[in-house]
């Protein structure tokens, strides 16, 4: 079905005209979305897009390069605190502070990538986990970062206030357009990376690092590069997240957040950018909307409340979100290891070969 006839066809950004058409249509849909969406959902949408950026970055590391990271909340925190800190204390304009913070995150990613050269599986998991916790702890200790009380994000000013050009984004909708544009750049960038020599080296490392090394892939460079790129994405996402939330403290970036990031990637589908987008959207929606107000959900809500009254506690019903996420994680691995992308492939195959 999807036969590639030559190299140039393989490296094209859009594999066919159909994909290009739907991508453009989807873009148009996203850019006109605020017109027919209630205002509350714009906030949710902002968080979803931030998580999409992060999930795409994490997928480069986990899905394409095959390394495990349980510390991405750490990079996320570096992005959020870094951007806010650079803007507040050094008065660097937003357009510079965000990439700068992301480069700081990428640098930490590079550092974390160094032990990862020799570690794999559970050992890598504990090293990255320790990294995430360390970042959270260090930020919580330093008073310039607001300590345990957390900090408020500075006003989101796209201009340079020092020379008198000021363009402050205040509403959720204007922020939505900013985040959306950045997200489109990041996602297209990720897709582009995976079509290049670097991306192919990542995939080779995932499939077998020893074989990749024999083929001439420099493991030192590419493994650390994968960590750095992934951390860069997390840093950008974190910087934007700070502005979306307006206020954050170190405990926002805890171990559970790292797990949820991993869940987004796995639920969406490993090694697929479309999958990451779907996974991040679904999980964020579940987490911030559906499961948060589960007692008001139709049918299910009443049922759960009655169960809670009968055997459990009504106050504890908010924990249902955690139960549902856990079940989704287990269910995806057991029934559909390729994630939502796998379901999508199956639907596509069914229609392409119909009626057989």
């Amino acid at each position, binding site marked *: 079905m999807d036969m590639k006839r030559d190299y140039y066809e393989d490296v094209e950004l859009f594999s066919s005209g159909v994909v290009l058409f739907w991508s453009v249509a989807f873009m148009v849909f996203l850019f006109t979305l605020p017109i027919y969406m209630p205002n509350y959902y714009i906030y949710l949408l902002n968080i979803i897009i931030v998580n999409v950026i992060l999930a795409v970055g994490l997928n480069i590391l*986990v899905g394409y390069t095959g390394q*495990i990271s349980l510390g991405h909340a750490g990079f996320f925190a570096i992005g959020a605190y870094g951007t806010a800190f650079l803007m507040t204390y050094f008065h660097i304009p937003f357009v510079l502070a965000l990439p700068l913070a992301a480069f700081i995150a990428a640098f930490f990613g590079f550092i974390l990538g*160094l*032990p990862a050269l*020799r*570690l794999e*599986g*559970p*050992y890598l*998991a*504990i*090293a990255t*986990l*320790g*990294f995430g*916790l*360390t970042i959270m*702890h*260090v930020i919580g*200790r330093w008073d310039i970062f607001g300590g345990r009380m957390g900090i408020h994000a500075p006003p989101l000013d796209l201009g340079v206030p020092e020379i008198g050009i000021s363009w402050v984004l205040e509403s959720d909708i204007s922020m939505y357009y900013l985040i959306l544009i950045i997200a489109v750049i990041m996602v297209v960038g990720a897709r582009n990376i995976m079509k290049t020599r670097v991306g192919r080296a990542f995939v080779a490392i995932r499939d*077998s690092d*020893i*074989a990749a090394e024999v083929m001439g892939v420099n493991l030192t460079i590419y493994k650390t590069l994968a960590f750095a790129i992934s951390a860069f994405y997390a840093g950008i996402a974190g910087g934007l997240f700070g502005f979306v939330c307006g206020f954050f403290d170190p405990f926002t970036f805890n*171990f*559970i957040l790292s*797990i949820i990031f*991993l*869940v987004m990637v*796995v639920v969406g589908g*490993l090694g697929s950018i479309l999958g990451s987008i779907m996974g991040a959207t679904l999980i964020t929606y579940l987490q911030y909307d559906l499961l948060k107000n589960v007692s008001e959900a139709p049918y299910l809500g009443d049922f759960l409340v009655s169960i*809670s009254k009968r*055997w*459990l*506690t009504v*106050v*504890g*019903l*908010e*924990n*249902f*979100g*955690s*139960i*549902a*996420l*856990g*079940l*989704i*994680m*287990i269910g*995806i*691995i*057991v029934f559909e*290891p390729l994630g939502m992308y796998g379901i999508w492939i199956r639907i596509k195959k069914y229609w392409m070969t119909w009626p057989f």
Partner: protein
Amino acid sequence: MIGQLIVEGLAIGACYGFFAIAFVIIYKTSEVINFAQGEMAMLSTFVAYHILTYYHAPFWLAFIITMVFAVLLGAFIEFAFLRPAKDPTVLGLLVITLGAEMLLMGLAGWKWGAEQKAFDIPMSFQVTHEPLKGMIINDWDIGVFIAAGCIMVLLYLFFRYTKLGVAMKATQQNQNAAKIMGIKVERVFSFAWGLSSLIGAVAAMFFASRATLDPNFMMEPFMRAFAAAVLGGLMSIPGVIIGGELLGLIENFFGYAWPEWKPIVAFIVIVLVLCIRPSGLFAKHYVKKV
């Protein structure tokens, strides 16, 4: 003062090592890192708490019921969540256990709420002895040492002399060969999970009496124990106990010198150790097959 620090470090280290044994049993048999270990133990401790508080049962009875519950819980998780997965990858298994962790944490929070509760075991901190001058040891420390020692001896005897223990060792060495020899490998897996859940539950009771009981209380000890297990090499039970003791001592001494960095010193040590010896201190380094 130094004696005091050593005793405390050894006691908490024994507790970490004790809990880390639970990891090792699962990792050795089925090559899964069980991220749900802490939460399995947490749920078991909550069951004990429930029995003690609402039915006013004596401690030994609650303990026995909890142990039975822990074994069933471990076996159930293996049976319901891990067994149905068809040739999962390392990451897939990890995600399943993380999912089980969130599931159990949510269940405990739903049933018992998030507020912190006190959990008492017969070995208290209040009763202290002073065998040497300047070295105070309390009942809790003694309890941990005895429990860890007993578990070590029992496990040794179990793996050495019982049929099931030998079957477990056979499964660890080569699953296919074990199957040919007539061992029901799935059943061995379920049993390993039950056993590990039981050991974890005993350790969690010690942790709970040290701090307080709430759905998140096993998070920190779990990570320390994980670190201890990695330090010890994830493969040998004595190695893991030594890893736990080392971690406890390092943490206690650092905590005394720089109290504010105590929570993260364990991880810095782990990363440094892993940089030098990528598979822990006491594991034989094996070469990966292509």
